[in-house]
């Protein structure tokens, strides 16, 4: 680079080079931006899952949305089936565990737990992570009742506390 005053020729050459770099850079940015989708074809996060009475007591797996609906009498909860480690679909399993209501601790009760087939994470029935690499509990989603047809509505974009239940009158 020459010392001394910048001549018109050098200035124009630099401006030209800068314009070239800016042009190529802007076009590269345009290409990268085009890869980011503006319209999502993913399914909506709010979904009607069915009338409350259509669910049996216990767990129902809604395969197409990867969510469990747990019913206990008139109370309902929605729990994600996607493992919080790497997103594999967990399975509900019936297992024998010591019955908490038995002071001797000898009686066994059948409860369900969730296990992940990918890396062996286990979750309790309420979704809390028990063992394995899962860093967080399974998320619980907001359940409401649709005012128009009385179906349960799960909002898979709205995470709520695991203790939150929808209790119907």
């Amino acid at each position, binding site marked *: 680079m020459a010392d001394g005053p910048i001549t018109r020729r050098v200035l124009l050459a630099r401006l030209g080079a800068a314009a070239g770099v800016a042009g190529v850079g802007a076009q590269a940015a345009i290409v990268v931006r085009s890869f980011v989708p503006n319209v999502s074809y*993913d399914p909506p996060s709010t979904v009607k899952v069915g009338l409350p009475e259509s669910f049996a007591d216990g767990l129902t797996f809604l395969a197409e949305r990867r969510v469990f609906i747990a019913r206990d009498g008139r109370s309902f909860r929605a729990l994600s089936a996607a493992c919080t480690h790497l997103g594999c679909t967990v399975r509900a399993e019936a297992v024998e565990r010591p019955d908490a209501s038995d002071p001797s601790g000898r009686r066994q009760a059948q409860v369900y737990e969730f296990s992940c087939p990918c890396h062996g994470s286990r979750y309790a029935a309420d979704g809390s992570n028990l063992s394995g690499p899962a860093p967080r509990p399974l998320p619980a989603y907001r359940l409401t009742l649709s005012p128009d047809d009385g179906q349960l509505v799960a909002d898979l974009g709205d995470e709520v506390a695991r203790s939150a239940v929808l209790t119907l009158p």
Partner: protein
Amino acid sequence: MTPRNRFWSVFPASSREATDAVVANLLLHWFPARMRVTSLAWTPSLWLGTISWVLFVLLLLTGLPLMVFYVPSTRDAYQSVKDIEHVVSYGWWLRAAHRVAAHLMVIVVTLHAGRVFLTGSYRNDADREQHREWNWVIGVALLAATVLLSFTGYLLPWDQLAYWAVTVSMNIVGSAPVLGAPLRELLLGGRDVGQAALMRFYLLHIVVLPIAVAALFGYHMWRIRKDGGLARAGTAGQAALVVDAIPAVIARAAVVTLGTWLAVTVLAMAIPSPLEQPANPLVTPNPAKAPWYFVWLQEIVADTTVRLGPVSINGALVGGLLLPAVLLAVTTLWPWLDRSPTSTVGVWLPAARRRQLVVFAAIVALVVGLTVVGLLRGPSWQFHWPWQAWPELPARW
């Protein structure tokens, strides 16, 4: 005009004329005009770089006809691969040859990197102006591109293996702080694994990565030439036995090429290509295993979730991103960290590099050990010895 003259016009009468012919010819110029006899031998390089290139060319040649039949859509991909396997004449062989060559390329490129490390060939001769360290960096990029090529190909059949491999790998990407989630969305073209993701991985596999490998390989070869061929300890002033590269190197390269081709041909007939059930987002296979070259990483990802009181750091970030990133960075920068004497350049397992070699052996043993443990995992990621039957899965609700 004799038949010989119809296809060839230069018949050198002397070594000088042969050299001129090579320099003047684009194709022959690929090789140097003259080579040391020691560079043609098997032991310094094991010819692993050449084998890698031959495998890459075989992958291009088998990939082209596969592209005629493969349909990159989540609806049709599985059926089109099934057609290649069972309907297209010799489609099974084309797919098997492509798959075998891909696996061999991962193995051979890895061995090539190991050879260059073990002989310290990323280091410069004491008495010459060279930049072999940059060629090592290009080599590391080529190794990464090879693994990515293999992995993106693994996804194309859109079977259960493919779907869950994309899901898990993209969640590993998404576990990175700040940039992870947007990068995951950019690669998938959405939040869910679907059509947009398949198309993006397909284009990475057939266009972006092959062009990257071809370009990097061209530069890799050019740098070897500029740096004076195979690395060896300073030989200034020593007489070396030099021969005309053509036909000596052509003959040796032909043996390597034909041997590689034969191996792929025979292995493709012996090893059938698997095709699992069609991709099903609702059911994760149990166990769900990564491809064999990622099993050691999968094992780390499953074991490195860190809990500090109420805070949990996902193993995906620790084992899936941070550890591999550190390993890759140290590997890339190793030529600048290696302070061993230049007399060890090009020498197999020199005593002066004992400490480095022990650490290298320990890392290799760890990776192999983790791979073996990962391969022996059964349902729900439980460990089982090969002679132990996998348990029946408990009742499902």
